[in-house]
């Protein structure tokens, strides 16, 4: 008599796998950390998504250091330029994806990551445009983002972001 594993791993048996939605759409917040990334994120936002929303991080000037509590209120803008409360956005996220162009300063990541840490939300950082940047610039970006991302990806071309979001059912 065939073993259970032998019987159950056939193509015929695969037909009896239950067909149902085994997950709910995840809320994924995609944040562009700098102007070059913003252009990519805006293009990405034109696509239909289940629960992905797209933001930019405003410039840092005049913003108190993290830990000063209320300062984080104005920390995101949606693509129409409306200010969004960072804590509120993170609170409703399953994953925050930060997009940075290679070589640019990623200070905003620190504040976003702090909010994510408070809410125990996973962070992924993508460094785009790496093909046109020097090794030194890439290393700088990696060092800047490493403390704030549980997954850090250097993508050779921008279309990877879309591929990744689709793969994550965004």
């Amino acid at each position, binding site marked *: 008599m065939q073993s259970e594993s032998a019987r159950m791993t056939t193509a015929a048996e695969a037909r009896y796998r239950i067909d149902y939605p085994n997950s709910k759409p995840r809320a994924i917040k995609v944040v562009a950390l700098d102007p070059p990334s913003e252009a990519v994120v805006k293009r990405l936002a034109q696509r239909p998504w289940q629960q992905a929303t797209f933001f930019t991080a405003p410039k840092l000037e005049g913003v108190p250091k993290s830990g000063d509590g209320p300062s984080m209120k104005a920390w995101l803008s949606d693509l129409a330029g409306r200010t969004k409360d960072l804590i509120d956005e993170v609170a409703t996220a399953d994953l925050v994806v930060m997009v940075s162009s290679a070589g640019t300063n990623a200070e905003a990541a620190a504040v976003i990551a702090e909010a994510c840490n408070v809410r125990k939300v*996973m962070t992924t950082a993508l460094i785009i445009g790496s093909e046109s940047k020097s090794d030194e610039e890439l*290393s700088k970006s990696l060092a800047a983002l490493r403390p704030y991302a549980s997954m850090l*990806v250097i993508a050779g071309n921008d279309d990877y972001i879309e591929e990744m979001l689709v793969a994550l059912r965004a």
Partner: protein
Amino acid sequence: MLRKEQNDLLTQSGPGTPMGQLFRSYWLPVLMASELAENECPPVRVKILSERLLAFRDTEGRYGLVDEFCAHRGVSLWFGRNEEHGLRCPYHGWKYDVTGQCIDVPSEPVESGFCKKIKLKSYPLIKRGPVLWTYMGPADKQPPLPEWEFATVPAEQSFISKRLQECNWLQAMEGGIDSSHVSFLHRGDLGTDPLFKGAKGNQYNLSDTRPHFEVVEQPGGLYIGARRNAENGNYYWRITPWVMPTFTMIPPRADHPIHGHFWIPIDDENCWAWTYDFHPVRALTEREVQAMKDGAGVHCKYVPGTFRPLANKDNDYLMDRAAQKAGKTYSGVAGFASQDASLQESMGPVCDRTKENLVSTDNGIIMARHRLMRAAKALVEKGVKPPGVDPEHQRVRSVSIVLPPDQAFKDGAREALIGRPGVAQTTV
């Protein structure tokens, strides 16, 4: 998650498919050299990329890989007589050389030249290291010979094995670039397996089960770095190179030999899991070789006389619930290779990726799929040579290393990630 058409594209490697065309751009491992050990030895059936072939070694030691079936009446030439510079079909005596050229049709006058009109499809078959390799693509695109380090070090520094894995190649390969499963599935063996134990890196592996990852594209594929906390705020990195389409090298542990895999499609529902072990600067010890032959490390024990793992789906992988409960093994299945195979085969012959729910730590897998699809498209539409064909892309090393927190592994391990003859591996 992949759409069905993407899953089909990646998992189908037969003739005429985009992924099949991609695989046919490379030298692929076909047989262990020991399977054709001497001139005029028995031929060996080969099925690769959904093509039925036959490998043999003629009177002069030349290797041939030809269509398995006689052009006359379709008899399997596995029954053939390997004699006097060719393989003769035992049915009516038709004979073929290693290029598949028919060189004798006894029923026809020699003067008629009939046999010159008969030729079996054939592919080059060459020996490199302990492996016989074939290239199944267009002759004018044949790449330089493979330069994988395990195949170019002196023979006494290298060991190879292969095992049948009864599922599609992609779900097997994806296990090889998924470092995060080691802390769970294989945790029971890290401290006891003779080819793993004693490494300080094992302690980092076991004490930090939530590694952080960095995925970096490299010319031939990817570097996937998994970092775990080490002492004094430093990070313990395990860096796995993946070279397209299907080569991985597992980061080393202490001075143990380095090991890794190729997953080569037999057809769309089976693959060969090739496993190599090598040491860059010393001969493998007798004890190490014996352990490998005994199925330790990432090798396996076989059903006698076959390359099928002893623990296989027909015996429920020798599942031991008591060992699972006692924590001796995490899944109840013993041995790294069988642990991987049991779970990967349980997904079914071809994993339905439309139903999966990947998470951000699966970015290595997502990126590998992305690179494969992109390369297949570029090859099919524009004839672009895929990454991994160039021997330079094959001179990679896996690395385990402790680095300061602000140092990128691509910088801190830059030299260590390149395979150099006579230079020891970088390992913890």
